[in-house]
């Protein structure tokens, strides 16, 4: 064309570039492969033991007993958590309960206390708390926030109009609660129950302290105490199958129903229900819950901190080095899990096709793998394929990152959705290079979510005991392993500082997370 002949200013052109996200696909696929590694090596391990040996190990009374122990405790704890979680969420979100804001915090804080610390607290004051009933009590108190949090969020976000419509259609208060209010919270309740069941199936430390045998404690015993790898791996297979059943049951129960609100997302002010004469009993219930779930473990830690008794306090150097190791591993795991989640989240949010959805779903397979199963598989993988990584810090961090990948993905996905591609296009049309757009638009929008993902994994890593016990580099102590060493020797006084530090470190990211989740709805809402 002749018009190009006289160009007063240069408009440099660029070469053709493919718009298909090849790099994203490659990295996303690599992440999926990494996440499948533990499951693959578990199967390799089982097949190496030979089918006859495995069937001999599986089809015996012990397996059945362990399965029964695990399943009945799971069902009981999940049911108890569902009742407590829904009741607490309903009182805080829907009634005029005095001090709702404070209760809303106190009810969640038990999440920051590791389950094995809670059980240590109970056992050290009441040694009779053990077995099935003791485990039911302690695990319910430790895990109910996993139901409370999603259900409270669902109650908060639900359309108040639906309840009004139900009343206008002639439903009374009780029937409206059953058919509409609970219906709105159903997916959240199911999700919370799945989290409780999976946490219970993965738990090792608390049951060791409470002297209750589950599949996980037995796997730990077989692999770490008597080194019976075929028994450990075949029981792991059973555990994984149970976890898959829980996840599959969740999928089936959700069905095709959709809970949504139609029309603009305007959060209408809802008039809280008046508790009236039920106020005092409700307050007493919350006080009891906070006292049992929070007061007991905290009080015990504080008591042992100031009354070390005949045991000597650990040397402060050991405390500091354990804290540094814990924080270092947790930071590395948080960073790695967040980075791994980015390509998967980008693919599923920016390129929503059936293939990318499938990739995203497949990464959730990790949810069926407990910390112990991942640890054992990775150790086996290291021994077989990469001996120089055996009992090394990098492998430990990879283990944490795999275990907590689903947590990171949820947070990263939310944050990537905060930065739609249109904003990048507008930024570029305003004369900004892609790198400047990344810096000025994408990063500010995505950063809070990435920080949340990091904190979520950090917090979980600090309080993770099982995987740490199996994979920690030889000679290295973390807060969790030191606490474990002292508390299993019944040196409760020596264990207390480690517990206190663990809780203190875990509380900071919890606070950051709470702030982030509080900010989310305000950003989405329109109007001042």
């Amino acid at each position, binding site marked *: *064309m002749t*018009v*190009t002949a*006289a*160009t*007063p200013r240069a*408009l*440099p*052109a*660029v*070469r*053709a570039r493919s718009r298909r996200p090849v790099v994203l696909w490659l990295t996303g696929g690599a992440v999926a492969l990494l996440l499948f590694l533990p499951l693959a090596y578990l199967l390799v391990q089982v097949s190496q033991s030979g089918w006859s040996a495995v069937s001999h190990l599986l089809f015996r009374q012990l397996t059945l007993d362990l399965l029964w122990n695990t399943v009945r405790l799971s069902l009981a704890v999940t049911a108890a958590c569902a009742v407590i979680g829904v009741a607490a969420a309903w009182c805080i979100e829907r009634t005029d309960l005095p001090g709702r804001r404070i209760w809303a915090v106190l009810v969640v804080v038990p999440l920051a206390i590791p389950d094995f610390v809670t059980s240590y607290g109970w056992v050290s004051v009441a040694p009779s708390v053990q077995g099935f009933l003791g485990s039911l009590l302690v695990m319910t108190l430790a895990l109910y926030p996993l139901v409370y949090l999603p259900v409270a969020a669902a109650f908060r976000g639900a359309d108040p109009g639906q309840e009004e419509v139900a009343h206008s259609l002639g439903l009374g208060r009780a029937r409206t609660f059953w058919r509409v209010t609970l219906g709105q919270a159903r997916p959240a309740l199911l999700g919370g129950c799945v989290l409780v069941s999976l946490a219970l199936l993965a738990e090792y430390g608390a049951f060791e302290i409470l002297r209750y045998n589950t599949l996980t404690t037995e796997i730990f015993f077989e692999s770490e105490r008597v080194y019976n790898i075929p028994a450990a791996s075949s029981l792991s297979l059973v555990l994984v199958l149970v976890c898959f059943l829980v996840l599959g049951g969740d999928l089936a129960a959700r069905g095709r129903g959709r809970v949504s609100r139609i029309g603009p997302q305007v959060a209408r002010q809802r008039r809280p229900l008046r508790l009236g004469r039920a106020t005092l009993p409700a307050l007493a219930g919350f006080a009891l819950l906070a006292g049992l779930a929070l007061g007991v473990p905290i009080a015990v830690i504080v008591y042992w901190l100031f009354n070390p008794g005949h045991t000597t306090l650990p040397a402060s150097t050991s405390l500091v080095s354990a804290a540094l190791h814990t924080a270092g591993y947790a930071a590395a795991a948080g960073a790695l899990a967040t980075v791994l989640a980015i390509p998967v989240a980008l693919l599923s949010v920016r390129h929503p096709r059936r293939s990318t959805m499938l990739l995203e779903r497949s990464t959730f397979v990790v949810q069926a793998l407990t910390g112990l199963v991942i640890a054992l598989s990775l150790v086996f993988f290291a021994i077989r394929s990469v001996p120089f990584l055996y009992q090394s810090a990098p492998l430990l961090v990879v283990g944490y990152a795999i275990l907590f990948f689903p947590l990171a993905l949820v947070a990263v996905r939310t944050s990537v959705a*905060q930065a*739609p591609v*249109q*904003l990048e*296009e*507008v*930024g*570029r*049309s*305003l*004369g*900004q*290079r*892609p790198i400047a757009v990344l810096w*000025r*638009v994408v990063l*500010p*929008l995505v950063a809070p979510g990435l920080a949340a993902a990091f904190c979520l994994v950090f917090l979980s890593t600090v309080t993770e005991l099982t995987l740490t016990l199996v994979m920690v580099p030889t000679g290295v102590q973390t807060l969790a392993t030191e606490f474990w060493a002292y508390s299993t020797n019944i040196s409760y006084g020596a264990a207390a500082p480690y517990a206190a530090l663990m809780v203190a470190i875990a509380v900071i990211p919890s606070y950051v997370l709470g702030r982030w989740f509080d900010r989310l709805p*305000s*950003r989405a*809402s*329109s*109007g*001042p």
Partner: protein
Amino acid sequence: MTSLHVTDVHKAFGSHAVLTGIDLTVPEGSLAAILGPSGSGKTTLLRVLAGFERADQGTIVLGDHVVDDGRRFVPSERRGIGYVPQEGALFPHLTVLRNVAFGVPRRERPARKLDELLEMVGLSGLGGRYPHQLSGGQQQRVALARALAIRPGIVLLDEPFSSLDAGLRSSVRADVQRVLREQGTTALLVTHDQDEALSLAEQVAVIRHGRVGQTGSPQNLYAHPGDPGIARFLGDANLVPCTVEGAVATTPFGLLPVRAGGAAPASRHSIALVRPEQLVVSIDPQGPGLAARVVRNQFHGHDTVITVEPEEPIGTPLVVVRSDGELDAPVGARVTIVARGEVVTWPDEESARSVLEAVEG
């Protein structure tokens, strides 16, 4: 400001061809509209012009720079195009003022008088607000100010008013038109709303199936649509069979003069366009003209739109009539219709017939 020349632009997504040879010229300083139904490829065209997508084939020239000719490709950030997306797409983490200042280099910001720009779009004093504190109309104004702040050669607007409610739409529309005039910016607006295109733009290009069907001033397009499909798209239209001899068409409404300027040759089988406002209804069933029965009566305040069914078949099942003010013709009433003014005619060839059928269908 600058002119825009688009020549034979093609764009396909996989096997799905969206643009199939777009030719378009927007003169310097003018406000043009691309009018097309949803799925006609108008948003894709805008995205290709903005540099968010590259053309598979064809040439795009801004002023005297080739920005895309299928081989060379100037990326969006070097085109100097102001882009106003459908929902505004303001940066949620920046205040109004920082949104507007986004594309302006820091040291040039004082000289650009961004406050004045805000004032011009009617947002003075709101510079410190965040986007979620603004109404939809205010967000659109900020998006326009942000695009104008970089002193673009041309502003592209992608259905900027479609997310606003009716009352707000007309005021924002008028303001946007005023601001673009004051700035003397070349602007290209994409819309599916014929009313918007006709009332706002100095030049309208009708786009169908990925190519430009007809271009012209709003008045010219409305008076001389290129084919029955475009006639239908630009407003309510009665398309009836007729025969043309010389400058006179014999229609079911009687003899009507054929509008000069049309290129329709004499033909026994033609199609005539009679706009609803050309028809006059008489509630006297014995009056002159075409006898019909009312099947629908919609009162709009400023006028009444009546749909009638002719008693004798005339080649179209229903006729739409627009009448000023109120008209006492209830459903079922027998009325007579008389036409006035000139008609546009097209030979009723296979193509015309198929277009007509497609429109009817």
